């Protein structure tokens, strides 16, 4: 991810970060991105998430 894209991304989500804070934030986000990538893994598109929508029957 380029520096320009990272700045754009930060602006896009409405965060206002001081210029000298940006490198530190970018490093943290890079770690988070790597963690997210690990979580993704190879899965079947049919695999269900753990959280389920629940509807209680009429009482």
């Amino acid at each position, binding site marked *: 991810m380029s520096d320009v*894209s990272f700045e754009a991304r930060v602006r896009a989500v409405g965060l206002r970060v001081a210029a000298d804070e940006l490198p530190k934030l970018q490093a943290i986000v890079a770690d988070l991105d790597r963690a997210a990538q690990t979580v993704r893994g190879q899965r079947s598109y049919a695999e269900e998430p753990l959280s*389920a*929508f629940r509807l209680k029957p009429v009482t």
Partner: protein
Amino acid sequence: MTKEEFGAVLDRAGLKLSDAQKTELFSVYPLLQAMVARAHPEMPREAEMSIMFNAEVK
């Protein structure tokens, strides 16, 4: 979001869109944002989601 920021978000998502595709999507992006805003009303901090984690995994 500016068009440049919008493009940056799509690029980061790993989608390979042409400029024409990005331009069209950016033109309807405000409609999606209006929906997002409607789905973000004032809610108490403790408001629960409609999906539930259940420790008893099936």
